[in-house]
Protein backbone atom coordinates (compact mmCIF):
# COMPACT_ATOMS: atom_id res chain seq x y z
CA UNK A 1 0.00 0.00 0.00
CA UNK A 2 1.95 2.95 -1.28
CA UNK A 3 0.47 6.09 0.09
CA UNK A 4 1.76 8.34 -2.62
CA UNK A 5 0.36 6.42 -5.52
CA UNK A 6 -1.95 8.68 -7.44
CA UNK A 7 -2.95 10.64 -4.41
CA UNK A 8 -2.63 14.33 -4.74
CA UNK A 9 -0.91 16.13 -1.92
CA UNK A 10 -2.71 19.11 -3.15
CA UNK A 11 -1.66 22.02 -1.04
CA UNK A 12 -1.45 25.55 -2.28
CA UNK A 13 -2.74 24.63 -5.72
CA UNK A 14 0.32 22.64 -6.62
CA UNK A 15 -0.31 19.18 -7.84
CA UNK A 16 2.17 16.54 -6.86
CA UNK A 17 0.80 13.65 -8.88
CA UNK A 18 2.29 12.30 -12.07
CA UNK A 19 -0.42 14.16 -13.92
CA UNK A 20 1.75 17.18 -14.31
CA UNK A 21 2.17 20.39 -12.48
CA UNK A 22 -0.06 22.77 -14.42
CA UNK A 23 -3.44 21.42 -13.62
CA UNK A 24 -4.56 21.98 -10.08
CA UNK A 25 -7.10 19.23 -10.43
CA UNK A 26 -6.49 15.76 -9.17
CA UNK A 27 -6.91 12.79 -11.53
CA UNK A 28 -10.35 11.94 -10.27
CA UNK A 29 -11.59 15.42 -10.98
CA UNK A 30 -10.34 15.16 -14.51
CA UNK A 31 -12.12 11.91 -15.15
CA UNK A 32 -15.33 13.07 -13.47
CA UNK A 33 -14.67 10.06 -11.38
CA UNK A 34 -17.01 7.18 -11.29
CA UNK A 35 -16.79 6.13 -7.71
CA UNK A 36 -15.15 2.84 -7.04
CA UNK A 37 -17.83 0.54 -5.74
CA UNK A 38 -17.28 -0.47 -2.16
CA UNK A 39 -15.42 -3.74 -1.97
CA UNK A 40 -17.71 -6.71 -1.62
CA UNK A 41 -15.47 -8.27 1.02
CA UNK A 42 -16.96 -8.82 4.43
CA UNK A 43 -16.51 -5.72 6.55
CA UNK A 44 -15.24 -6.35 10.05
CA UNK A 45 -17.61 -5.31 12.80
CA UNK A 46 -16.78 -2.08 14.63
CA UNK A 47 -15.42 -2.72 18.13
CA UNK A 48 -17.27 -1.62 21.23
CA UNK A 49 -16.13 1.88 22.19
CA UNK A 50 -15.01 0.81 25.65
CA UNK A 51 -12.71 -1.84 24.16
CA UNK A 52 -11.36 0.13 21.24
CA UNK A 53 -8.90 2.96 20.99
CA UNK A 54 -11.11 5.63 19.52
CA UNK A 55 -9.54 8.31 17.39
CA UNK A 56 -11.93 11.09 16.44
CA UNK A 57 -10.93 13.19 13.44
CA UNK A 58 -12.61 16.22 11.96
CA UNK A 59 -13.44 16.35 8.28
CA UNK A 60 -10.97 19.12 7.56
CA UNK A 61 -7.98 17.20 8.86
CA UNK A 62 -8.97 13.90 7.32
CA UNK A 63 -9.63 15.43 3.93
CA UNK A 64 -8.48 18.46 2.02
CA UNK A 65 -11.40 20.88 2.04
CA UNK A 66 -9.49 24.05 1.32
CA UNK A 67 -11.48 24.96 -1.74
CA UNK A 68 -14.74 24.55 0.10
CA UNK A 69 -13.38 26.45 3.09
CA UNK A 70 -12.64 29.34 0.77
CA UNK A 71 -16.16 29.28 -0.60
CA UNK A 72 -17.53 29.42 2.91
CA UNK A 73 -15.30 32.36 3.83
CA UNK A 74 -16.02 34.32 0.70
CA UNK A 75 -19.60 33.42 -0.09
CA UNK A 76 -21.15 32.18 3.13
CA UNK A 77 -22.75 29.03 4.46
CA UNK A 78 -25.58 28.61 1.97
CA UNK A 79 -23.22 28.71 -1.00
CA UNK A 80 -20.85 26.37 0.79
CA UNK A 81 -23.59 23.78 1.32
CA UNK A 82 -24.83 24.22 -2.21
CA UNK A 83 -21.35 23.63 -3.57
CA UNK A 84 -20.87 20.54 -1.44
CA UNK A 85 -24.15 19.04 -2.59
CA UNK A 86 -23.44 19.83 -6.23
CA UNK A 87 -20.10 18.08 -5.97
CA UNK A 88 -21.36 15.22 -3.89
CA UNK A 89 -19.96 12.49 -6.09
CA UNK A 90 -16.51 14.06 -6.22
CA UNK A 91 -14.35 12.70 -3.42
CA UNK A 92 -12.13 15.02 -1.43
CA UNK A 93 -8.42 14.50 -1.64
CA UNK A 94 -6.51 13.39 1.46
CA UNK A 95 -5.82 15.81 4.28
CA UNK A 96 -2.98 15.79 6.86
CA UNK A 97 -4.58 13.10 9.04
CA UNK A 98 -5.10 10.74 6.13
CA UNK A 99 -1.80 8.91 6.28
CA UNK A 100 -2.14 8.61 10.05
CA UNK A 101 -5.58 7.00 9.65
CA UNK A 102 -4.29 4.65 6.94
CA UNK A 103 -1.45 3.63 9.27
CA UNK A 104 -3.96 2.96 12.07
CA UNK A 105 -5.87 0.70 9.72
CA UNK A 106 -2.70 -1.14 8.77
CA UNK A 107 -2.03 -1.81 12.45
CA UNK A 108 -5.61 -3.03 12.85
CA UNK A 109 -5.19 -5.46 9.98
CA UNK A 110 -2.15 -6.95 11.68
CA UNK A 111 -3.85 -7.08 15.07
CA UNK A 112 -6.82 -8.86 13.56
CA UNK A 113 -4.49 -11.46 12.09
CA UNK A 114 -2.83 -12.14 15.42
CA UNK A 115 -5.86 -11.72 17.68
CA UNK A 116 -8.97 -12.37 15.59
CA UNK A 117 -11.33 -12.27 18.57
CA UNK A 118 -10.01 -9.14 20.20
CA UNK A 119 -11.72 -5.77 20.10
CA UNK A 120 -8.59 -3.91 21.18
CA UNK A 121 -8.27 -2.10 17.90
CA UNK A 122 -8.18 1.43 16.64
CA UNK A 123 -11.58 2.81 15.79
CA UNK A 124 -11.62 5.96 13.70
CA UNK A 125 -14.68 8.15 14.08
CA UNK A 126 -15.40 11.15 11.86
CA UNK A 127 -16.38 13.93 14.23
CA UNK A 128 -17.39 17.00 12.29
CA UNK A 129 -19.37 20.16 12.89
CA UNK A 130 -20.50 19.99 9.31
CA UNK A 131 -24.12 20.09 8.36
CA UNK A 132 -25.64 16.72 7.45
CA UNK A 133 -26.07 17.97 3.89
CA UNK A 134 -22.35 17.44 3.45
CA UNK A 135 -22.79 13.92 4.78
CA UNK A 136 -23.19 12.13 1.49
CA UNK A 137 -20.08 13.70 0.02
CA UNK A 138 -18.12 12.65 3.10
CA UNK A 139 -19.50 9.11 2.93
CA UNK A 140 -18.74 8.93 -0.78
CA UNK A 141 -15.20 10.09 -0.11
CA UNK A 142 -14.69 7.49 2.63
CA UNK A 143 -15.92 4.87 0.19
CA UNK A 144 -13.63 6.11 -2.54
CA UNK A 145 -10.52 5.95 -0.39
CA UNK A 146 -11.63 2.65 1.11
CA UNK A 147 -11.28 3.85 4.66
CA UNK A 148 -12.68 1.79 7.51
CA UNK A 149 -14.75 4.54 9.02
CA UNK A 150 -18.18 3.31 10.06
CA UNK A 151 -18.98 5.78 12.78
CA UNK A 152 -19.49 9.47 12.45
CA UNK A 153 -21.14 12.48 14.01
CA UNK A 154 -22.19 15.45 11.91
CA UNK A 155 -23.31 17.85 14.54
CA UNK A 156 -24.58 20.64 12.30
CA UNK A 157 -22.79 23.25 14.39
CA UNK A 158 -23.34 21.84 17.86
CA UNK A 159 -20.42 21.14 20.16
CA UNK A 160 -18.82 17.73 19.65
CA UNK A 161 -17.72 17.38 23.26
CA UNK A 162 -20.64 15.29 24.48
CA UNK A 163 -20.27 12.98 21.50
CA UNK A 164 -16.54 12.63 22.05
CA UNK A 165 -17.33 11.38 25.52
CA UNK A 166 -20.11 9.08 24.36
CA UNK A 167 -17.66 7.42 21.98
CA UNK A 168 -15.02 7.05 24.72
CA UNK A 169 -12.63 9.06 22.59
CA UNK A 170 -8.94 8.48 23.26
CA UNK A 171 -7.67 11.18 20.91
CA UNK A 172 -9.41 14.02 19.08
CA UNK A 173 -7.81 15.73 16.10
CA UNK A 174 -9.25 18.89 14.61
CA UNK A 175 -8.23 22.04 12.80
CA UNK A 176 -10.36 24.11 15.17
CA UNK A 177 -8.51 25.46 18.22
CA UNK A 178 -11.72 26.24 20.08
CA UNK A 179 -12.97 22.67 20.00
CA UNK A 180 -9.58 21.24 20.84
CA UNK A 181 -9.29 23.49 23.90
CA UNK A 182 -12.78 22.50 24.96
CA UNK A 183 -11.88 18.83 24.66
CA UNK A 184 -8.67 19.25 26.65
CA UNK A 185 -10.59 21.08 29.36
CA UNK A 186 -12.86 18.04 29.57
CA UNK A 187 -9.90 15.71 29.97
CA UNK A 188 -9.92 14.36 26.42
CA UNK A 189 -6.54 14.12 24.67
CA UNK A 190 -6.77 16.51 21.76
CA UNK A 191 -4.60 18.45 19.36
CA UNK A 192 -4.90 20.99 16.57
CA UNK A 193 -3.60 19.50 13.35
CA UNK A 194 -1.79 21.60 10.76
CA UNK A 195 -1.16 20.85 7.14
CA UNK A 196 2.50 20.93 6.10
CA UNK A 197 3.39 22.72 2.87
CA UNK A 198 4.76 19.51 1.44
CA UNK A 199 4.06 16.28 3.24
CA UNK A 200 6.98 13.91 3.40
CA UNK A 201 6.40 10.31 2.54
CA UNK A 202 5.76 8.13 5.55
CA UNK A 203 5.94 4.41 6.18
CA UNK A 204 2.97 2.27 5.27
CA UNK A 205 4.12 -0.68 7.34
CA UNK A 206 4.82 1.00 10.65
CA UNK A 207 2.76 3.54 12.57
CA UNK A 208 5.10 6.17 13.99
CA UNK A 209 3.95 8.60 16.65
CA UNK A 210 6.22 11.31 18.05
CA UNK A 211 5.61 13.27 21.23
CA UNK A 212 7.13 16.29 22.83
CA UNK A 213 7.72 15.73 26.55
CA UNK A 214 6.79 18.69 28.70
CA UNK A 215 3.17 19.80 28.58
CA UNK A 216 2.33 16.93 26.24
CA UNK A 217 3.27 13.65 27.90
CA UNK A 218 4.22 15.35 31.12
CA UNK A 219 2.61 18.27 32.91
CA UNK A 220 3.94 21.76 32.32
CA UNK A 221 5.43 22.07 35.80
CA UNK A 222 9.01 22.14 34.59
CA UNK A 223 8.24 24.50 31.80
CA UNK A 224 6.80 26.88 34.31
CA UNK A 225 10.09 26.94 36.15
CA UNK A 226 11.97 27.46 32.95
CA UNK A 227 9.76 30.37 31.94
CA UNK A 228 9.79 31.92 35.38
CA UNK A 229 13.40 31.45 36.38
CA UNK A 230 15.33 30.58 33.24
CA UNK A 231 17.21 27.60 31.91
CA UNK A 232 19.81 27.27 34.64
CA UNK A 233 17.21 27.10 37.35
CA UNK A 234 15.38 24.58 35.22
CA UNK A 235 18.41 22.26 35.00
CA UNK A 236 19.03 22.63 38.73
CA UNK A 237 15.46 21.86 39.53
CA UNK A 238 15.30 18.84 37.29
CA UNK A 239 18.50 17.40 38.68
CA UNK A 240 17.29 17.89 42.21
CA UNK A 241 13.98 16.21 41.46
CA UNK A 242 15.34 13.54 39.17
CA UNK A 243 13.68 10.78 41.07
CA UNK A 244 10.36 12.47 41.52
CA UNK A 245 8.08 11.59 38.62
CA UNK A 246 6.58 14.46 36.74
CA UNK A 247 2.87 14.80 36.75
CA UNK A 248 1.10 13.52 33.67
CA UNK A 249 0.17 15.62 30.64
CA UNK A 250 -2.80 15.43 28.27
CA UNK A 251 -1.32 12.86 25.91
CA UNK A 252 0.03 10.43 28.46
CA UNK A 253 -3.08 8.31 28.09
CA UNK A 254 -2.61 8.03 24.35
CA UNK A 255 0.97 6.86 24.74
CA UNK A 256 -0.33 4.38 27.25
CA UNK A 257 -2.82 2.80 24.85
CA UNK A 258 -0.17 2.66 22.13
CA UNK A 259 2.04 0.82 24.62
CA UNK A 260 -0.74 -1.65 25.34
CA UNK A 261 -1.05 -2.48 21.67
CA UNK A 262 2.70 -2.76 21.30
CA UNK A 263 2.78 -5.37 24.04
CA UNK A 264 0.27 -7.41 22.05
CA UNK A 265 2.74 -7.52 19.19
CA UNK A 266 5.62 -8.33 21.53
CA UNK A 267 3.52 -11.18 22.85
CA UNK A 268 3.58 -12.69 19.39
CA UNK A 269 7.31 -12.23 18.98
CA UNK A 270 7.15 -9.00 17.01
CA UNK A 271 9.32 -6.76 19.09
CA UNK A 272 12.04 -6.01 16.56
CA UNK A 273 9.76 -4.91 13.77
CA UNK A 274 6.75 -3.86 15.77
CA UNK A 275 4.14 -2.16 13.58
CA UNK A 276 3.93 0.67 16.13
CA UNK A 277 6.88 2.83 17.08
CA UNK A 278 6.89 5.74 19.51
CA UNK A 279 9.30 8.63 19.87
CA UNK A 280 10.02 11.26 22.47
CA UNK A 281 11.38 14.39 20.82
CA UNK A 282 12.25 16.83 23.56
CA UNK A 283 14.24 19.98 24.05
CA UNK A 284 15.55 18.48 27.27
CA UNK A 285 19.15 17.39 27.15
CA UNK A 286 20.41 13.86 27.64
CA UNK A 287 23.13 15.06 29.98
CA UNK A 288 20.89 16.63 32.55
CA UNK A 289 17.15 17.11 32.41
CA UNK A 290 16.48 14.10 30.23
CA UNK A 291 16.90 11.65 33.06
CA UNK A 292 13.86 12.84 34.90
CA UNK A 293 11.78 12.38 31.78
CA UNK A 294 12.89 8.80 31.30
CA UNK A 295 12.48 7.97 34.96
CA UNK A 296 8.99 9.39 34.91
CA UNK A 297 8.03 7.21 31.99
CA UNK A 298 9.48 4.19 33.72
CA UNK A 299 7.57 4.96 36.90
CA UNK A 300 4.38 4.98 34.82
CA UNK A 301 5.26 1.61 33.39
CA UNK A 302 5.47 3.12 29.94
CA UNK A 303 8.06 2.50 27.31
CA UNK A 304 9.08 4.75 24.50
CA UNK A 305 11.04 3.30 21.61
CA UNK A 306 13.31 6.22 20.91
CA UNK A 307 14.06 9.22 23.10
CA UNK A 308 15.67 12.12 21.28
CA UNK A 309 17.11 14.79 23.52
CA UNK A 310 17.78 17.83 21.39
CA UNK A 311 19.10 20.10 24.14
CA UNK A 312 17.22 22.98 22.60
CA UNK A 313 18.06 22.31 18.95
CA UNK A 314 15.24 22.66 16.40
CA UNK A 315 13.04 19.61 16.08
CA UNK A 316 12.29 19.88 12.35
CA UNK A 317 15.38 18.12 11.00
CA UNK A 318 15.17 15.29 13.53
CA UNK A 319 11.52 14.69 12.75
CA UNK A 320 12.29 14.74 9.06
CA UNK A 321 14.58 11.80 9.68
CA UNK A 322 12.09 9.91 11.82
CA UNK A 323 9.12 10.49 9.52
CA UNK A 324 6.36 10.11 12.09
CA UNK A 325 2.76 10.01 10.88
CA UNK A 326 1.98 12.50 13.58
CA UNK A 327 3.89 14.72 16.02
CA UNK A 328 2.50 16.44 19.12
CA UNK A 329 3.99 19.57 20.70
CA UNK A 330 2.66 22.26 23.00
CA UNK A 331 4.65 25.05 21.41
CA UNK A 332 3.70 26.53 18.06
CA UNK A 333 7.35 27.31 17.40
CA UNK A 334 8.10 23.59 17.24
CA UNK A 335 4.87 22.72 15.45
CA UNK A 336 5.65 25.21 12.71
CA UNK A 337 9.24 24.09 12.52
CA UNK A 338 8.15 20.51 12.06
CA UNK A 339 5.51 21.36 9.47
CA UNK A 340 8.02 23.39 7.50
CA UNK A 341 10.02 20.25 7.02
CA UNK A 342 7.09 18.11 5.98
CA UNK A 343 5.98 16.51 9.24
CA UNK A 344 2.31 16.41 10.12
CA UNK A 345 2.49 18.35 13.36
CA UNK A 346 -0.22 18.99 15.93
CA UNK A 347 -0.41 21.67 18.53
CA UNK A 348 -1.51 20.68 22.02
CA UNK A 349 -2.75 23.99 23.50
CA UNK A 350 -1.97 23.07 27.08
CA UNK A 351 0.03 24.63 29.83
CA UNK A 352 2.07 27.71 30.44
CA UNK A 353 3.37 28.04 26.89
CA UNK A 354 -0.07 29.07 25.69
CA UNK A 355 -0.12 32.26 27.67
CA UNK A 356 3.12 33.40 26.13
CA UNK A 357 2.24 32.95 22.48
CA UNK A 358 0.32 35.93 21.14
CA UNK A 359 0.78 35.82 17.38
CA UNK A 360 -0.57 33.42 14.84
CA UNK A 361 -3.34 31.92 16.89
CA UNK A 362 -6.33 33.95 15.80
CA UNK A 363 -9.17 31.55 15.15
CA UNK A 364 -10.24 31.61 11.55
CA UNK A 365 -13.96 31.30 11.12
CA UNK A 366 -14.92 27.99 9.64
CA UNK A 367 -18.11 26.46 8.31
CA UNK A 368 -17.88 24.21 11.29
CA UNK A 369 -17.62 26.94 13.90
CA UNK A 370 -19.77 26.28 16.92
CA UNK A 371 -23.02 28.15 17.05
Amino acid at each position, binding site marked *: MNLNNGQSLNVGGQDFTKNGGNSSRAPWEDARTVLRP*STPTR*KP*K*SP*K*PENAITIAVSSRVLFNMEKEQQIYEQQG*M*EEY*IKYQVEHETEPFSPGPAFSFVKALEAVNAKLRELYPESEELFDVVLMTNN*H*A*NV*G*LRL*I*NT*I*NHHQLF*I*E*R*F*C*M*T*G*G*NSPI*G*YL*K*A*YHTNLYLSADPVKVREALAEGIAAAIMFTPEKMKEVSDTQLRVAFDGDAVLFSDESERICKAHGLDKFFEHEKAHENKPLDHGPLKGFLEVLGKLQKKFYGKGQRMDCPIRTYLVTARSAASSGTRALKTLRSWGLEIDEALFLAGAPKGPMLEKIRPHIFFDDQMFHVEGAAEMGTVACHVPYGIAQRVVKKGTKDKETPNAS*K
Partner: protein
Amino acid sequence: MVSTDQKTDVKEKEADCPVVVAVTSHAVFESGGAEDPDGLYVGGIAFPLLQALQKVNERLLKENPAESLLFDVIVITTESQQQQQSSRITESIRHHGLKVSRFCFSNEEDFIENLLNNNVHLFLTTNRNEALQGSQKGVLSVLLDEHTASCPTEQLRVLFCGDAVVQSEAGPALASKQAAQSFSAQIGKMRGRFGLFDSPISIALVTSRGGRESCGDALRTLRSLGVNADEAYCLAGVPRGPIKRLLRPHFLLSECFSSN
Protein backbone atom coordinates in the same frame (compact mmCIF):
# COMPACT_ATOMS: atom_id res chain seq x y z
CA MET B 1 -59.86 27.52 15.26
CA VAL B 2 -60.11 25.36 12.21
CA SER B 3 -62.92 26.33 9.91
CA THR B 4 -64.38 24.07 7.29
CA ASP B 5 -62.82 26.27 4.62
CA GLN B 6 -59.46 25.03 5.60
CA LYS B 7 -60.69 21.51 5.12
CA THR B 8 -61.33 22.08 1.42
CA ASP B 9 -57.96 23.75 1.19
CA VAL B 10 -56.59 20.50 2.46
CA LYS B 11 -57.81 18.73 -0.62
CA GLU B 12 -56.79 21.40 -3.10
CA LYS B 13 -53.37 22.44 -1.88
CA GLU B 14 -52.09 19.23 -0.35
CA ALA B 15 -48.62 20.57 0.02
CA ASP B 16 -49.58 23.43 2.27
CA CYS B 17 -52.24 22.02 4.51
CA PRO B 18 -51.77 22.36 8.24
CA VAL B 19 -49.99 19.62 10.10
CA VAL B 20 -52.49 18.24 12.56
CA VAL B 21 -50.88 17.05 15.74
CA ALA B 22 -52.95 15.41 18.45
CA VAL B 23 -51.53 15.10 21.94
CA THR B 24 -53.23 13.21 24.76
CA SER B 25 -54.14 15.15 27.87
CA HIS B 26 -52.14 12.61 29.85
CA ALA B 27 -49.06 13.70 28.01
CA VAL B 28 -49.74 17.40 28.31
CA PHE B 29 -50.34 17.34 32.01
CA GLU B 30 -48.63 15.56 34.79
CA SER B 31 -49.85 12.03 35.21
CA GLY B 32 -52.05 11.45 38.18
CA GLY B 33 -53.72 14.77 37.56
CA ALA B 34 -51.51 16.71 39.91
CA GLU B 35 -52.93 20.12 40.63
CA ASP B 36 -51.52 23.46 41.50
CA PRO B 37 -53.01 25.71 44.23
CA ASP B 38 -55.66 26.95 41.78
CA GLY B 39 -56.85 23.44 41.06
CA LEU B 40 -55.38 23.53 37.59
CA TYR B 41 -53.26 20.79 36.08
CA VAL B 42 -49.50 20.97 36.22
CA GLY B 43 -47.50 20.75 33.00
CA GLY B 44 -46.32 17.26 32.05
CA ILE B 45 -44.02 15.54 29.59
CA ALA B 46 -45.40 17.01 26.39
CA PHE B 47 -45.58 20.50 27.73
CA PRO B 48 -42.24 21.72 26.33
CA LEU B 49 -43.12 20.00 23.08
CA LEU B 50 -46.30 22.01 22.74
CA GLN B 51 -44.39 25.17 23.47
CA ALA B 52 -41.90 24.26 20.76
CA LEU B 53 -44.70 23.61 18.24
CA GLN B 54 -46.13 26.97 19.12
CA LYS B 55 -42.82 28.66 18.61
CA VAL B 56 -42.51 27.10 15.18
CA ASN B 57 -45.90 28.48 14.25
CA GLU B 58 -44.94 31.94 15.46
CA ARG B 59 -41.77 31.90 13.41
CA LEU B 60 -43.55 30.56 10.33
CA LEU B 61 -46.06 33.37 10.51
CA LYS B 62 -43.28 35.86 11.03
CA GLU B 63 -41.69 34.72 7.78
CA ASN B 64 -45.00 34.73 5.99
CA PRO B 65 -48.15 36.03 7.67
CA ALA B 66 -50.22 34.13 5.13
CA GLU B 67 -48.52 30.82 5.90
CA SER B 68 -50.84 27.83 5.92
CA LEU B 69 -48.28 25.14 6.63
CA LEU B 70 -48.65 25.42 10.38
CA PHE B 71 -49.04 23.03 13.27
CA ASP B 72 -52.65 22.53 14.17
CA VAL B 73 -52.61 21.24 17.74
CA ILE B 74 -55.40 19.18 19.22
CA VAL B 75 -55.55 18.02 22.81
CA ILE B 76 -57.39 14.74 23.05
CA THR B 77 -58.58 12.75 26.03
CA THR B 78 -58.42 9.03 25.61
CA GLU B 79 -60.26 7.74 28.60
CA SER B 80 -63.48 8.53 30.39
CA GLN B 81 -62.00 9.96 33.57
CA GLN B 82 -60.18 12.65 31.66
CA GLN B 83 -63.15 13.03 29.36
CA GLN B 84 -65.07 14.31 32.31
CA GLN B 85 -62.48 16.90 33.20
CA SER B 86 -63.11 18.98 30.11
CA SER B 87 -63.40 22.36 31.79
CA ARG B 88 -60.37 21.82 33.98
CA ILE B 89 -58.38 20.80 30.94
CA THR B 90 -59.38 23.82 28.88
CA GLU B 91 -58.77 26.09 31.85
CA SER B 92 -55.37 24.66 32.46
CA ILE B 93 -54.41 25.01 28.81
CA ARG B 94 -55.50 28.61 28.81
CA HIS B 95 -53.77 29.28 32.09
CA HIS B 96 -50.47 28.00 30.78
CA GLY B 97 -50.80 30.13 27.68
CA LEU B 98 -50.78 27.23 25.25
CA LYS B 99 -52.42 27.70 21.89
CA VAL B 100 -54.55 24.70 21.16
CA SER B 101 -56.94 24.86 18.24
CA ARG B 102 -59.29 22.09 19.30
CA PHE B 103 -60.17 19.76 22.12
CA CYS B 104 -61.51 16.28 21.61
CA PHE B 105 -63.06 14.86 24.69
CA SER B 106 -63.16 11.22 23.84
CA ASN B 107 -62.71 8.02 25.79
CA GLU B 108 -61.02 4.67 25.21
CA GLU B 109 -63.77 3.57 22.86
CA ASP B 110 -63.90 6.43 20.42
CA PHE B 111 -60.61 8.31 20.53
CA ILE B 112 -59.27 6.51 17.46
CA GLU B 113 -62.34 7.52 15.53
CA ASN B 114 -61.72 11.10 16.57
CA LEU B 115 -58.16 10.91 15.39
CA LEU B 116 -59.34 9.74 12.00
CA ASN B 117 -62.15 12.23 11.75
CA ASN B 118 -59.83 15.07 12.53
CA ASN B 119 -57.35 13.98 9.89
CA VAL B 120 -54.59 13.76 12.48
CA HIS B 121 -51.14 13.53 10.92
CA LEU B 122 -49.30 12.79 14.13
CA PHE B 123 -50.63 11.32 17.34
CA LEU B 124 -48.47 11.75 20.44
CA THR B 125 -49.10 9.75 23.57
CA THR B 126 -47.33 8.41 26.62
CA ASN B 127 -49.44 5.27 26.52
CA ARG B 128 -47.99 2.36 24.60
CA ASN B 129 -51.35 0.74 24.07
CA GLU B 130 -52.86 3.88 22.61
CA ALA B 131 -49.90 4.26 20.25
CA LEU B 132 -50.36 0.71 19.07
CA GLN B 133 -54.04 1.20 18.43
CA GLY B 134 -53.35 4.35 16.49
CA SER B 135 -50.73 2.66 14.34
CA GLN B 136 -52.99 -0.20 13.55
CA LYS B 137 -55.54 2.23 12.14
CA GLY B 138 -52.95 3.89 9.97
CA VAL B 139 -52.38 6.96 12.11
CA LEU B 140 -48.75 7.89 12.66
CA SER B 141 -48.49 7.32 16.40
CA VAL B 142 -45.43 8.12 18.42
CA LEU B 143 -44.76 7.13 21.98
CA LEU B 144 -43.34 10.07 23.89
CA ASP B 145 -40.22 9.31 25.84
CA GLU B 146 -40.27 10.60 29.36
CA HIS B 147 -36.63 11.51 29.33
CA THR B 148 -36.33 13.34 26.10
CA ALA B 149 -39.67 14.90 25.25
CA SER B 150 -39.60 16.93 28.40
CA CYS B 151 -36.34 18.75 27.78
CA PRO B 152 -37.11 22.42 27.47
CA THR B 153 -35.46 23.92 24.46
CA GLU B 154 -35.92 26.82 22.10
CA GLN B 155 -36.14 24.52 19.11
CA LEU B 156 -38.45 21.75 18.06
CA ARG B 157 -36.09 18.81 17.76
CA VAL B 158 -37.16 15.92 15.58
CA LEU B 159 -35.13 12.73 15.44
CA PHE B 160 -35.35 10.28 12.57
CA CYS B 161 -34.16 6.79 13.38
CA GLY B 162 -32.87 5.27 10.20
CA ASP B 163 -32.38 1.72 11.36
CA ALA B 164 -34.89 -1.09 11.44
CA VAL B 165 -33.61 -1.90 14.93
CA VAL B 166 -34.74 1.40 16.30
CA GLN B 167 -38.30 1.00 15.10
CA SER B 168 -40.46 2.78 17.57
CA GLU B 169 -41.62 0.52 20.33
CA ALA B 170 -45.20 1.24 19.33
CA GLY B 171 -45.07 -1.97 17.39
CA PRO B 172 -45.60 -2.86 13.75
CA ALA B 173 -46.43 0.26 11.83
CA LEU B 174 -47.33 -1.09 8.42
CA ALA B 175 -50.26 1.13 7.65
CA SER B 176 -48.64 4.19 9.09
CA LYS B 177 -45.52 4.09 6.92
CA GLN B 178 -47.22 6.24 4.35
CA ALA B 179 -48.52 8.51 7.09
CA ALA B 180 -44.96 8.76 8.38
CA GLN B 181 -43.62 9.64 4.98
CA SER B 182 -46.14 12.36 4.34
CA PHE B 183 -45.68 13.80 7.81
CA SER B 184 -41.93 13.77 7.29
CA ALA B 185 -42.37 15.58 4.01
CA GLN B 186 -44.39 18.23 5.80
CA ILE B 187 -41.73 18.63 8.46
CA GLY B 188 -39.09 18.84 5.77
CA LYS B 189 -41.05 21.54 4.04
CA MET B 190 -41.45 23.47 7.29
CA ARG B 191 -37.75 23.21 7.93
CA GLY B 192 -37.14 24.55 4.48
CA ARG B 193 -38.96 27.76 5.35
CA PHE B 194 -35.98 28.68 7.52
CA GLY B 195 -32.30 29.15 6.87
CA LEU B 196 -29.40 27.09 8.17
CA PHE B 197 -29.02 29.09 11.34
CA ASP B 198 -31.53 30.10 13.95
CA SER B 199 -34.22 27.69 12.82
CA PRO B 200 -37.05 26.88 15.25
CA ILE B 201 -36.96 23.30 13.94
CA SER B 202 -33.96 21.04 13.93
CA ILE B 203 -33.87 17.65 12.25
CA ALA B 204 -31.44 14.93 13.21
CA LEU B 205 -30.88 11.46 11.82
CA VAL B 206 -29.47 8.53 13.77
CA THR B 207 -28.64 5.08 12.50
CA SER B 208 -27.86 2.66 15.30
CA ARG B 209 -26.65 -0.64 13.96
CA GLY B 210 -25.52 -0.33 10.37
CA GLY B 211 -22.36 1.32 9.11
CA ARG B 212 -21.92 4.38 6.98
CA GLU B 213 -23.78 2.92 4.01
CA SER B 214 -26.96 2.50 5.99
CA CYS B 215 -26.69 6.08 7.18
CA GLY B 216 -26.04 7.21 3.63
CA ASP B 217 -29.14 5.33 2.49
CA ALA B 218 -31.19 6.92 5.26
CA LEU B 219 -29.97 10.38 4.24
CA ARG B 220 -31.01 9.63 0.67
CA THR B 221 -34.41 8.39 1.79
CA LEU B 222 -34.98 11.56 3.77
CA ARG B 223 -33.88 13.65 0.84
CA SER B 224 -36.34 11.88 -1.43
CA LEU B 225 -39.06 12.93 1.01
CA GLY B 226 -37.87 16.51 0.86
CA VAL B 227 -36.24 16.38 4.27
CA ASN B 228 -32.79 17.87 4.74
CA ALA B 229 -31.39 16.74 8.05
CA ASP B 230 -29.30 19.21 10.03
CA GLU B 231 -27.40 16.58 11.95
CA ALA B 232 -26.52 12.97 11.24
CA TYR B 233 -25.06 10.33 13.52
CA CYS B 234 -23.95 6.90 12.55
CA LEU B 235 -23.50 4.86 15.69
CA ALA B 236 -22.61 1.48 14.24
CA GLY B 237 -23.23 -0.21 17.55
CA VAL B 238 -22.32 2.54 20.01
CA PRO B 239 -24.96 2.59 22.80
CA ARG B 240 -27.83 4.87 21.85
CA GLY B 241 -28.71 6.19 25.29
CA PRO B 242 -25.99 8.81 25.74
CA ILE B 243 -26.42 10.02 22.18
CA LYS B 244 -30.16 10.38 22.54
CA ARG B 245 -29.64 12.34 25.74
CA LEU B 246 -27.34 14.72 23.91
CA LEU B 247 -29.73 15.12 21.01
CA ARG B 248 -32.72 15.87 23.24
CA PRO B 249 -35.35 15.15 20.60
CA HIS B 250 -38.95 15.96 21.36
CA PHE B 251 -40.00 12.87 19.48
CA LEU B 252 -38.62 10.09 17.31
CA LEU B 253 -39.76 8.88 13.92
CA SER B 254 -38.67 5.64 12.41
CA GLU B 255 -41.47 4.39 10.23
CA CYS B 256 -40.18 6.06 7.07
CA PHE B 257 -37.41 3.56 6.83
CA SER B 258 -39.20 0.33 7.60
CA SER B 259 -38.50 -2.28 5.01
CA ASN B 260 -42.18 -2.89 4.36
